[in-house]
């Protein structure tokens, strides 16, 4: 028995050796270089030892097998040669594993991702627990890279080309049962029976014929054009999904498979390592890995004030059963908690329940959820017309119509029906939280939350603390948001909070472009090409001019940077151009598809005709956002540049491959941005004048992310 930096070797009396991964001081196992070296040493020793009948590879963690390579190590690589060398090292060790003279069984319980999956691929047998925590996948493409420890080679050989493509290109994780179905694991058993099952495989030592050796696969391996057909089908699907974003990794993976599937393994491994080396240094990989960091940091600390300790939330309630209220209630019910949903009349209450049911039913249709799950979740939403049951509630989310007076009245109602310890949150996208909370008897337990629409799809929640909100309340709300599997970001109570304020700066500038005479399809196309999920005018149509004009009005009153844009939105709202919801906005919608509307010019009344280049459109609309973000940092709306980036990616779909708004700004250079803004300010108006923070950063030659 011996421990070598997180690897323990346990010799059993029956000639079985257990190799146990257990990274010290960590919640999950990662394949750091040190661990890999220790593993190699361990294998070398065992290979030369007599009397060993088999090897089990297991984890000492509770719900984790191996989470993959260490992202931080990849981030520190500065040349593609280093990256390629690192991949070669891993490949060599896993090839050593694959060539062990005795059978090796992987005992998989918990998450098994990336390098972990590549490790089990090099084992003789893979036995997995049926626990829901057991997930197997190759998420490398999500970090802008590809599997580099043999994953692109051993996976298709084991499960066949099409299953391998599905896993490598999407990065999705499989449950044990699904992994068994495609032949990625050999057996699935309850966790208690794992060691015995793995030993049985070693004792029986059967010869397996993997899916990758079936006749059809043979054809894919031998006949290049046939292989190309499968690959090009996958490629088409991929292009549709990524819509032209700069995501080179999955395409590179496709080319590797086209080139290597059916060929020599060693040759294939070399191709794989070279590709990884190149990809690891791409801006996309750097950005996606930085985003990964941001995400995990945000989970640890969403920007909480000092001294707040979250209190347990056992029972929750939602007041207002509209689209937002129903979505929030459903999210809470999904966490397993009972949630009371109150509205003033039967019809809105029924509509809210229908909305929740509709979302779940569509998930059932897409096989994302079982009927039983639908039934159980719906049963946790308790419709009510009165405040009955509210005395026992720990957390109320008010989600009534966005009207200051109404929200105040409801806040008072809620306060008189709950215990003094109950946390009360108002859900709003634009109303000032402090103003609503002015009427509160206990302002310390009152705060704002901003769920994005549609709640079940949007992962971000802004948590808005007023000057009077107690730290425990912020911590409790953040914890609750995490529990319903969303990402909290704590912001200060300034109009528009973070996301809408930035978004409005961008949309406002797009509207100015329109007034100056740019074609709206041209503007949309430029920003879609930049990577935004939809252009500004399609986005405005999604939001609806009624809502957008109201938000714009609020923000303009607060910051006064776009009166003419607000007026244009109000004019469109008055012309009943509400957008997608009534089929008429900047575009006309026919069967849900946008088509340009020739009449829009009569409403906009452009000053002339301009044809700005795509690049110019992007700078013109994105730099005001950067500028506004700088002001947000000055005003401490959020504390960290990372908050801005995460907020924009999760809240607006800002292209992840660009790493976020401020990382994009760093890429352009702050000095250059300041000059651009100064020019634009002189041309288009003072609203574009660079923020003080940007000027200071230029003087001190600093970036948002040093």
């Amino acid at each position: 028995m011996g421990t070598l930096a997180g690897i323990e070797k346990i010799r059993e009396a029956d000639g079985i050796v257990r190799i146990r991964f257990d990274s010290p001081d960590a919640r999950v196992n990662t394949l750091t270089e040190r661990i890999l070296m220790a593993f190699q040493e361990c294998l070398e020793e065992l290979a030369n030892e007599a009397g060993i009948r088999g090897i089990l590879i297991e984890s000492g963690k509770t719900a984790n097998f191996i989470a993959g390579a260490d992202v931080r190590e990849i981030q520190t690589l500065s040349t593609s040669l280093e990256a390629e060398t690192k991949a070669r090292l891993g490949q060599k060790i896993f090839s050593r594993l694959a060539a062990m003279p005795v059978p090796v069984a992987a005992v998989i319980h918990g998450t098994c991702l990336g390098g972990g999956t590549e490790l089990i691929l090099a084992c003789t047998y893979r036995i997995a627990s049926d626990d829901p925590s057991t997930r197997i996948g190759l998420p490398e493409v999500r970090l802008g890279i590809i599997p580099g420890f043999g994953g692109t080679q051993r996976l298709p050989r084991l499960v066949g080309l099409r299953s391998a493509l599905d896993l490598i290109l999407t990065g999705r994780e499989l449950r044990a049962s699904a992994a068994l179905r495609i032949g990625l694991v050999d057996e699935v058993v309850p966790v208690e029976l794992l060691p015995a099952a793995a030993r049985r495989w070693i004792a029986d030592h059967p010869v397996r014929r993997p899916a990758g050796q079936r006749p059809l696969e043979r054809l894919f391996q031998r006949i290049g054009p046939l292989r190309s057909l499968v690959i090009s089908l996958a490629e088409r699907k991929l292009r549709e999904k990524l819509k032209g974003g700069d995501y080179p990794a999955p395409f590179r993976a496709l080319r590797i498979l086209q080139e290597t599937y059916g060929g020599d393994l060693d040759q294939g491994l070399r191709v794989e390592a070279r590709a990884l080396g190149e990809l690891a240094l791409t801006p996309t990989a750097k950005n996606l890995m930085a985003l990964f960091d941001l995400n995990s940091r945000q989970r640890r600390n969403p920007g909480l004030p000092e001294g707040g300790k979250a209190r347990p939330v056992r029972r929750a309630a939602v007041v207002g059963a509209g689209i937002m209220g129903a979505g929030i209630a459903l999210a809470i019910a999904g966490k397993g908690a009972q949630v009371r949903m109150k509205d003033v009349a039967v019809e809105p209450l029924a509509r809210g329940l229908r909305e929740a049911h509709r979302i779940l039913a569509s998930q059932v249709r897409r096989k994302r959820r079982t009927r039983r799950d639908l039934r159980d979740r719906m049963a946790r939403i308790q419709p009510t017309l009165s405040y009955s049951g509210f005395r026992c509630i720990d957390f109320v989310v008010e989600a009534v119509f966005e009207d200051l007076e109404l929200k105040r009245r409801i806040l008072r109602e809620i306060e008189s029906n709950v215990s003094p310890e109950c946390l009360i949150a108002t859900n709003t996208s634009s109303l000032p939280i402090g103003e609503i909370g002015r009427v509160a008897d206990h302002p310390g337990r009152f705060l704002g939350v901003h769920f994005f629409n549609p709640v079940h799809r949007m992962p971000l929640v802004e948590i808005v603390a007023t000057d009077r909100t107690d730290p425990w309340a912020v911590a409790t709300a953040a914890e609750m948001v995490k529990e319903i599997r969303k990402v909290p970001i704590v912001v200060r109570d300034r109009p528009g909070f973070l996301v809408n304020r930035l978004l409005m700066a961008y949309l406002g500038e797009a509207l100015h472009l329109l007034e100056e005479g740019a074609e709206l399809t041209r503007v949309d196309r430029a920003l879609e090409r930049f990577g935004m999920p939809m252009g500004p005018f399609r986005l405005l149509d999604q939001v609806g001019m009624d809502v957008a004009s109201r938000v714009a009005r609020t923000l303009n009153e607060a910051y006064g940077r776009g009166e003419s844009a607000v007026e244009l939105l109000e004019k469109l709202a008055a012309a009943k151009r509400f957008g997608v919801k009534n089929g008429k906005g900047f575009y006309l919608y026919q069967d849900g598809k946008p088509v340009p509307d020739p009449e829009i010019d009569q409403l906009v009344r452009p000053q002339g005709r301009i044809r700005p280049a795509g690049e110019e459109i992007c700078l013109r609309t994105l730099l005001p956002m950067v500028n506004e973000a700088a002001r947000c940092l000055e005003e401490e709306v959020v504390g960290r540049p990372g908050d801005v980036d995460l907020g924009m990616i999760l809240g607006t779909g800002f292209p992840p491959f660009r790493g976020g708004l401020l990382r994009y700004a760093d890429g352009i250079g702050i000095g250059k941005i300041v000059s651009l803004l100064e020019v634009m300010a002189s041309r288009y108006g003072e609203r574009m004048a660079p923020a003080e923070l940007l000027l200071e950063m230029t003087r001190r030659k600093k970036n948002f992310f040093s």
Partner: protein
Amino acid sequence: MIPAKRVVVVGGVRTPFVKAWNVFQEVGAVELGRIAIVEALARSELEADQVDEVIFGNIAQPPGAPNVTRVIALAAGIPRSVPAFTVNQNCASSLQAIATAAQRIEAGLAGTIVVGGTESMSSIPLLWSEEVQKILLELRRARSVLARIRILSGLRPRHLKPVVALEKGLTDPVCGLNMGQTAEVLARRFSISREEQDRFALRSHQRAVRAREQGLLSEEIAPVFLPPGYAPVADDIGPRHQQTMEALARLRPVFERKHGTVTAGNSCQLTDGAVALILCSEEKARRLRLPSLGAIRSYAFAGLAPEVMGLGPAFSTPSALDRAGLPLSRIGLIEINEAFAAQVLANQIAFSSRKFAREELDRSEPIGEIDPSILNVNGGAIALGHPVGASGARIVLTLLKEMRRRNTELGLATLCAGGGQGGAFVMEL
């Protein structure tokens, strides 16, 4: 009898009662029971983890949930550490649930118990006849294909006709009469005419309709939102506004075609519904500052001949009154579950009959006169329906709500149960 610890009802609510095979057809006993518990707890502002036990009455066990109470309790968010069980005493099931809970609280074994009943008469399954069951069983045992063919050749078209478990359940296996026939026995024995029965039925509808219009019933009802459209059902479906004597008179007797008097119109309706009550020891209620709806003063159950099962109230009420140390004259409000008009009317006669007291109860004095003006003042099961496992708790709930409204000090809730039993509760404010 003065209970060791006084047991109070701190809250209660029921689902609307809906005729079987109507809108609740697909809702089922579990969901109805869940809604009743959730709303009862919420309206009492009681946290689910304050509950020590759950006891529900249910007769037609859903095949997928044999101990239906446990399934309901978990669905309602009651902590899994809280035990739950189901009692079956036919129509007296939920009265028995209340009695059992009261005993546990009196004995200091529990502080708060959620009781009630749930019944989905729509979901009572169809069964294969015994003949077919035998064939299917043999088929399963058969080894060879030939043997299987031989067995299958014994199947006849008549075998396709299922046995309606509901009909079977409503037929007494001891005396062989179905429940309606036992009502006919009472009608004959107590000379109750068809017209008297119809008049009683009409009154039940009129009172229920009035109570519904005045919003009295909705005070005890939690609406049920029906998926997938989630249209709410907020009212009982049974009470008929336009009910007339003429319409009742047109109905044919169901149970004895030729000479009978019991019709669908003067019998209770087959119904889906659930009721939940929260029982607490008086001291715990005070500690949690839970307002009391009323307290249990006494209760009793009694057995009698199955063929006259409808007289259950007349057999059980005297013991309950004795235990309360009260004469019937002190009771200000009475609920007798209306299984059949003939059956309630028979009890009214029996209560006031010295002969009945002497011969059947071995008492020298009659139980007492029932004043029709205090009997089932908001209608009864003929109008509202009779979800068998839930009705006992329903009459206790309805009684308590009306006692509160009228500030009546003492009330009686009593019913008959198939198989020849009766149960009676004396309640006090």
